[in-house]
């Protein structure tokens, strides 16, 4: 018996597109071997096979949307699969093509020079005799070379219309449009970057993009194209805050967690978001109203060997520095181990991208749409700061806030960033 392999419980998801089929018909697979990859909003999931066997038939294709219980493939149990395959059907009538390849026997030796003639013309034209399309639609399909037997009619009672026929041409001209997660290549009238054969100029190697990059690419592209983005820069004197951080970090080390500046950044961000609720919002789809969020979930961009992921610290307004630090520790570990669940990466209202561990003097973070703002921080550095009478060495942290200008104006962004800097300068302001 063949087993029908279905999509297992994949959490709170429905109609998730299949982005990759990892097996093909005839493959022998073991239990738990991944069979397809699904792509939810932010995560990809591999669906494992429930048992070992030989794949008899794959019932889905890339781009299909599946939910829990959707059939994926037919698996033939191992024992059965080892049985000899059915003998190829013998005595099948030669196909038209085969017949056409066999020149007609010339029975009359008196006329041996006549050109050999096949018995029947070879034709590969599809048969339209059973399609639900009027004669004019059939003619149009022939003119355009469209196979009506592969089209689903949108007309009354499933009738194929002229528009359906023309529609297939539009779709085939832009095959990218239907796949959903693909980059809007040329779809907005943007000319494609022409393909270049780089190997003409020197040796090259093609390395497929990591899965996360493949997924995040279109998302980032979408954000880049959709959000009119402005970056506002400021800096904050975190000399005192960092001293306090070190105290907490020393204390935490013994208990198995570290306290980084990121925890303070999260708390400061929440403070600034409370003060400026527009930053904690999204545009509604009609783009005529703001959806203000009454919760504070802060996404944190984390660099992993496979690429950038953004786990979310939920309800950051209700968590203290220590709790946030502990949560960050566990989220980062999960991220690096590739074990983040999709729930860990959903629901952010604001995002922080911290490159402080690496360096830099400033950058333009890209707003993680549909959020409307993002904070980018780089490495703090000791700088001489004029305090009115003298230069003092102070630890200065550059802040870059990128925002969606449709939602946030420059002045508001300046106030938001200043508030952020102000809070970071003296963490006692966090509790005010």
């Amino acid at each position: 018996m063949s087993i029908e392999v279905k999509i297992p419980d994949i959490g709170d998801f429905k109609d998730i597109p299949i982005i990759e089929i990892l097996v093909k018909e005839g493959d022998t697979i073991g239990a738990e071997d991944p069979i397809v990859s699904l792509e939810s909003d932010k995560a990809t999931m591999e669906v494992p096979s429930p048992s070992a066997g030989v794949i008899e038939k794959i019932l889905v294709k890339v781009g299909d949307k599946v939910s829990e219980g959707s059939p994926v493939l037919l698996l033939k149990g191992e024992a059965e699969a080892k049985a000899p395959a059915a003998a190829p059907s013998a005595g099948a009538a030669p196909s038209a093509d085969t017949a056409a390849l066999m020149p007609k026997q010339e029975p009359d030796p008196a006329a041996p020079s006549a050109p050999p003639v096949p018995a029947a013309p070879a034709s590969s034209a599809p048969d339209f005799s059973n399609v639900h399309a009027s004669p004019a639609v059939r003619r149009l399909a022939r003119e355009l070379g469209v196979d009506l037997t592969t089209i689903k009619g949108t007309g009354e009672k499933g009738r194929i219309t002229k528009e359906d026929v023309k529609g297939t041409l539009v779709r085939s001209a832009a095959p990218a449009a239907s796949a959903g997660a693909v980059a809007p290549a040329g779809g907005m009238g943007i000319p494609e970057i022409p393909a270049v054969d780089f190997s003409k100029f020197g040796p090259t190697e093609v390395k497929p993009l990591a899965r996360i990059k493949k997924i995040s690419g279109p998302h980032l592209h979408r954000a880049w194209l959709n959000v009119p983005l402005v970056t506002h820069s400021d800096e904050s004197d975190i000399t005192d805050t960092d001293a306090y951080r070190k105290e907490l970090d020393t204390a935490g080390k013994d208990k198995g967690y570290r306290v980084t500046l990121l925890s303070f950044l999260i708390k400061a961000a929440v403070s600034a978001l409370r003060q400026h609720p527009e930053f904690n919002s999204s545009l509604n789809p009609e783009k005529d109203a703001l959806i203000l969020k009454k919760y504070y979930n802060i996404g944190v961009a984390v660099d992993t060997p496979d690429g950038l992921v953004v786990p979310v610290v939920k309800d950051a307004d209700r968590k203290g520095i220590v709790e946030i630090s502990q949560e960050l520790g566990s989220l980062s570990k999960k991220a690096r181990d590739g074990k983040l669940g999709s729930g860990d990466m959903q629901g952010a209202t604001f995002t922080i991208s911290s490159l402080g561990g690496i360096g830099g003097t400033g950058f333009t973070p890209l707003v993680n749409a549909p959020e409307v703002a993002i904070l980018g921080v780089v490495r703090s550095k000791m700088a001489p700061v004029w305090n009115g009478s003298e230069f003092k060495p102070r630890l200065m942290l550059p802040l870059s806030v990128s925002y969606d200008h449709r939602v946030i104006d420059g002045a508001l962004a300046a106030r938001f960033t200043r508030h952020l800097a102000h809070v970071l300068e003296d963490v006692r302001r966090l509790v005010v």
Partner: protein
Amino acid sequence: MSNEVRLPDIGDFKNVPVIEVLVKAGDTIAVDDTIIVLESDKATMDVPSSVAGKVAEVKVQPGDKVTQGDLILVLEGAAAGTGQAKPEVAEKAAPAQTSAGGSPLAAGTGQAGYGSPATAGGTGASAAPAPKGAAPVSGEEMRAEVLVLGAGPGGYTAAFRAADLGKKVILVERWPSLGGVCLNVGCIPSKALLHAAKVIDESQAMASHGISFAAPQIDIDQLRSWKEGVVKRLTGGLGGLAKQRKVTVVTGTARFVSPHQIEVEHEGKKTIIGFDNAVIAAGSEPIKMPFIPHDDPRVIDSTGALELDGVPKRLLVIGGGIIGLEMATVYHALGSKVTIVELMDQIIPGADKDIVTPLFKRISKQYEAIHLKAKVTAVEALPEGLKVTFEGGSAPATDTFDKILVSVGRRPNGKLINAEAAGVAVDERGFIPVDKQMRTTAPHIFAIGDVVGQPMLAHKAVHEGKVAAEAAAGKNSFFDAKVIPSVAYTDPEVAWVGLSETEAKAKGIKVGKGVFPWAASGRSLSLGRDEGITKVLFDEESNRIVGCGIVGPSAGDLIAEAALAIEMGADAEDIGLTIHPHPTLSETVGMAAEAFEGTITDLYMPKKKAH
């Protein structure tokens, strides 16, 4: 192949548009001559030819996008640049063309762009493609872009359509007048005589309704000349249409001598005509039987019957199909005593029995005898008559008739045109196999009409002719009609289209039917007739109409609605909800659909479907 010029390496470009084509078929080019100009992002590029030779065909046109390796030109001659054709190959491929002056150009199809590999391997064995264009080559007296063989309804339609699409067309016909069997000795003259028969029958039928006429005085010569007048008017009109379109009409009997040449013989004079594309519309002819003395003038076929050479006292019609029954109708009206002998268990074997029964009942009363499941085994020509020996059915052992009409079917003329010389396959029965574009095994030669298969009907040939002409002109035209209606112009007429009940049963297709008996049609009763039936068959699942059979006066005109409904994919509701004018016979189609739906009120029917 060395006679192809492909796009060379043009650097890092793909799908570059062609902005200019500098050569045309027939040009002689040298190595490095510029053949096309491409336009990339910023530059235009001249593309040189890699070989020398004579251009047979240019495969690209301005606007096409090309990439390295795409076919640009086909040159003549495999040994490109040497200019040497291979006469021995050419002779091999075209043995029958001595009259063509041994032109080596005749061999090879030159249609490298399409066709089955077998065709390319067969006719293309000699690599010299035929010259393109309409200029005659040596040995040819004329040259056509599209040559149509046969001027019947299919042939003249193909010729006219091709001419309208800008092709130089030659139409070859063996008879002096255009129109083929249909116009000259088929559909049209028979309809003229059937009209006469109808007037005679109806005038007699009126006696029982209170109007009596004297017995008709039939002047057979005048009737014949009226019929001939009708034919002349139509065929003359065709001649005019051909002239207006500048279609050259050549009279004579044609046979292929090579894949691109035909020899036309007329009154002993032979003419070679070259062509790029040909459409074979050679038609069919009545089947002759070995045991029948066809030489005897008293044995006639449909053509002889339409000549109206007297009215026999006793006429035997062999074959109870459409043609035999129509002629029987005419001769019966003119006063002959008619006997019909049919091999099958019903007359008009293609139609459902219930649709044929009203006709059978009526003519059973009118005619002397109808013998089903019977056959003629011998005919002896005696001075006093034709002595016929029968076998089977209700037929007597022997009987003697004044005339015999043989109407047992028609045989395609595929074997009469030496199609093999052109690489066109003809099956053992004389049919020419074609694909949906009407292409034969030689892709540049098309065949249409009776010569490609059943049903042998003019309206099928006409549509096929258009497809062939359009395909020859480079259009993506296919024969995609779902159904071809058939009509017997008997009294009552019998017409059917699409699936018949018998066929559905044989194929295991589930159909539902709606039947409307004309006894409930006011219009039919007011015509003095009540035997008609309209039966419509529907797909059980989709309720879409799949077939229709109608018997009754004007059934042939009514069947067109069913044909349109099938092509449009109409279902029972669509037909039933279409308001048909009252009182007409066309109402019966709507009523039959309602009968299927169970919504009919003009009949009381046990409920079939809940509505």
